């Protein structure tokens, strides 16, 4: 079972729709037991990292996420979902985050339009099953004003260029996290989801 964490914000619908399109069912939930019993857990997100963190803490989901990550079960995070996995964010001052990926979320460099909004090329930095059938430098849809800067560069699975090299994807143990939105990245976005859930579910549905 695929659990999509519902923390009262974010546009979950497009993630649910994309997962349905590639042939899987998902459950949108904020129930700790449901999340802890899922085969795959998805943390989607749009909006502000600080608000997201506050909502997760208020619902007690922060602890649940730590448990899921510690259990080794596949965990997919998208956009703000990726950002809250870091140690802290600079958004609206300084705000502690989940601390699962050591590093900081910083404002995009000045000199270009912010948000970074639109289709940009994904440079694949590692070999990984999520990239199966997806050519290097394929365009994916980004919309964000902050970006994660991991302490350990080896967790960066893909980058994109926007004034500087941006960490666009993290792969660390059982975590796959994307700054872009695969569910809004057309055919190749759906391909990436299909690759991911095939890998994560290992034949289950």
């Amino acid at each position, binding site marked *: 079972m695929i659990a999509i964490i519902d923390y009262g914000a974010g546009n979950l619908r497009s993630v649910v729709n994309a997962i349905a399109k590639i042939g899987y069912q998902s459950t949108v939930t904020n129930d700790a037991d449901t999340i802890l019993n899922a085969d795959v857990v998805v943390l989607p997100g749009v909006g502000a990292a600080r608000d997201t963190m506050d909502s997760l803490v208020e619902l007690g989901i922060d602890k649940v996420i730590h448990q899921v990550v510690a259990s080794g079960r596949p965990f997919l995070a998208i956009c703000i979902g990726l950002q809250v996995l870091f140690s802290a964010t600079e958004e609206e001052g300084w705000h502690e985050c989940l601390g699962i990926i050591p590093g900081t979320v910083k404002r995009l460099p000045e000199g270009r339009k912010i948000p*970074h909004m639109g289709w940009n090329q994904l440079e694949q930095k590692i070999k990984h099953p999520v990239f199966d059938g997806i050519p290097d430098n394929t365009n994916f849809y980004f919309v964000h004003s902050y970006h994660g800067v991991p302490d350990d560069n080896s967790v960066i699975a893909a980058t994109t260029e926007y004034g500087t090299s941006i960490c666009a994807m993290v792969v660390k143990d059982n975590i796959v996290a994307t700054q872009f939105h695969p569910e809004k990245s*057309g055919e190749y976005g759906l391909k990436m989801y299909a690759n991911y859930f095939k890998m994560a579910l290992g034949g289950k549905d």
Partner: protein
Amino acid sequence: MLTKRIIPCLDVTCGRVVKGTSFTQLRDAGDPVELAAFYDIEDADELVFLDITASSDGRDTMVDVVRRVAEQVFIPFTVGGGIREVADMRLMLEAGADKVSINSAAVQNPELITDGAKKFGSQCIVVAIDAKRTASGDGWEVLTHGGRQPTGIDAVGWANRAVQLGAGEILLTSWDSDGQKQGYDIKLNSAVSESVSVPVIASGGAGTMDHLYDALTVGKADAVLAASIFHFKTYSIREVKEYLQSRGIPVRL
């Protein structure tokens, strides 16, 4: 490198796309879902749906359109028209829209921008500005209510204020150029784009592929929106993108 976005605009009323289309190969050229899927296959980068239904009954129909589009089309899309309060925004975003566009309601109640941005994030809030060149020719005035109502507000100043209040993007329509097919108002576009920190979508006046090129270069637009050149198949989106690429504009192909 971030690519420039090409965005077809679909006017919807009572659940149907209007303003005429020549998509004869589609079973039903007026079905928004079918047209959206067609533009997706054609490599449109985003879509804008403008709800031009006047009645509140029509609003439920629009929510249904948004829901059906979101189930079938996996590129970002914006919904505008008739969004007057945060509850309207929530309805469209929960149905699956990625962004909402507000126009007259933002002028009347600028706090709507801030309230929406706080609730859903700036990236969801597009402020649409209809601008008309002033009689003296030294600036542009904001019009509301589908261009019927002059406001006396300076368009460049309003764009800046909207961004300060939380707008994540500006959809800028030249009322002088709209429907004329003589090109976008390049001066208006560059004036706004240079003065705001967020992306600007140029709208109004596309007639040739050079017009799109000009808006993206001299006009400094981050994206271009067009309706009739795509609906009447003057050009396909792919054709436009190949042309822009041949002239050095980064596009997604």
